[in-house]
């Protein structure tokens, strides 16, 4: 999938200025970078919920997008899944997969941060999407829940052969799941390549400095 050059400006501040990119089919792409590097802005533009400077960005239909602050709707946990159009049986099975079956009939508003994040991921992964965009889906999860979420995501990707764009602050997560890695800094693409290439043998000094800072 070829993406055109993307820029996004708020007032006088250009928060994103990317060249044309290519997303490889059936691959998990991880976007890494510090706060304010433009990761979430890129994810929102790819998902079609934010317009870039030059107007509407057309990616493709049926994009699945989990925003950074995914909203638990005021209804039961089960209904939060069924609102996607999934049947009760399928929704229950999905909740079991995510370890939330015991909370099915509770209000989603009463869940903890980690449970809410699991619900949000379960909700987006209940449908098959050709392109899946996840903005820090495991940020609120503990280690066990994070590893479970990664396992489910890898299985989902293998089953559906979808293209995944995963925004993460966790470099270890990027190493575990990513095929391709994009490193952003101040809205610019600094380096891209395979996970091994970018995370273990970076070419750019900025990438090395970022990785050294996080002591990978």
């Amino acid at each position, binding site marked *: 999938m070829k993406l055109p050059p993307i820029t996004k400006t708020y007032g006088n501040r250009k928060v994103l200025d990317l060249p044309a990119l290519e997303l490889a089919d059936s691959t998990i792409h991880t976007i890494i970078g510090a706060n304010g590097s433009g990761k979430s802005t890129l994810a929102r533009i790819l998902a079609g919920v934010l317009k870039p400077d030059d107007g509407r960005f057309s990616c493709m239909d049926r*994009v*699945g*997008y*989990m925003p950074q602050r995914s909203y638990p*709707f*005021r209804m039961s946990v089960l209904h939060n899944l069924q*609102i996607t159009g999934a049947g009760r049986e399928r929704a229950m099975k999905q909740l079991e997969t995510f370890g939330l079956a015991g909370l099915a009939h509770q209000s989603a508003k009463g869940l903890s941060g980690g449970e809410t994040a699991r619900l949000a991921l379960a909700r987006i992964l209940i449908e098959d999407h050709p392109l899946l965009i996840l903005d820090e889906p495991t940020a609120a999860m503990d280690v066990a829940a994070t590893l479970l979420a990664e396992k489910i995501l890898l299985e989902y990707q293998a089953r559906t052969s979808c293209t995944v764009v995963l925004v993460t602050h966790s470099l270890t997560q990027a190493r575990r799941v990513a095929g391709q890695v994009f490193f952003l800094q101040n809205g610019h693409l600094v380096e891209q390549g395979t996970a091994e290439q970018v995370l273990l043998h970076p070419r750019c000094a900025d990438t090395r400095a970022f990785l050294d800072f996080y002591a990978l």
Partner: protein
Amino acid sequence: MKTAFVQALALITSGDRQLGIILVTTLRMALSSSMIALLLGAPLGVLLGSYAGRGKRTLVVINRTLMGLPPVVVGLVCYMLFSGVGPLRHLRLLYTVTGMVIAQVILLVPLIAGSLESHVSTVAPDIRETALGMGLSRGRILLLIINESQYQLVSAYLLGLGRAFAEVGAVSMVGGAIAYKTNVMTTAIMNYTNMGAFTTALALGIILLAISLVLNAGVALLHWRLEG
């Protein structure tokens, strides 16, 4: 003061006819105007709160200005429209409960819309982004926003109802505070006070306070039930 209070309670429990008519007129006027204002103001508030395009700030500023409309100004405008020389004189609305309801609706719609707009503005962006990511339609997103605003919807209605009960300026100008016809509790309190009938005025004041207490207790109970 204590004697007047005791006499007022006695008047309330005696089933005084005039007091009963005032109470019924007040309930008729307040319930009708607040319900009509909810039907008009709630969709306006939800749409304004969930709208994120150009001109939103201007619309919000206009609505907030209307929220501060002086009741006597609304009363004056309605009086001029409905009076014998006004453009709507053929409707014969001056000194009627319907005319009072119209004046109240003009006052309450921005209030209810503004109350909902401020809540919806805070939750709508996250709901919209989440729902769009799930591929839900715009109509479905609007329903989700309304579902998330249940408490604020009832709270906004009760705010409007409380205001309708307490308002005096517009209803006295449009209704004329005619005994057995358009006299409501607030205008009656003014009239009875001017006549020196403090016991009756105090009795009406107690009923108004009791209504306010019930409304606020209702809001608190609802909040407790919805928010846990």
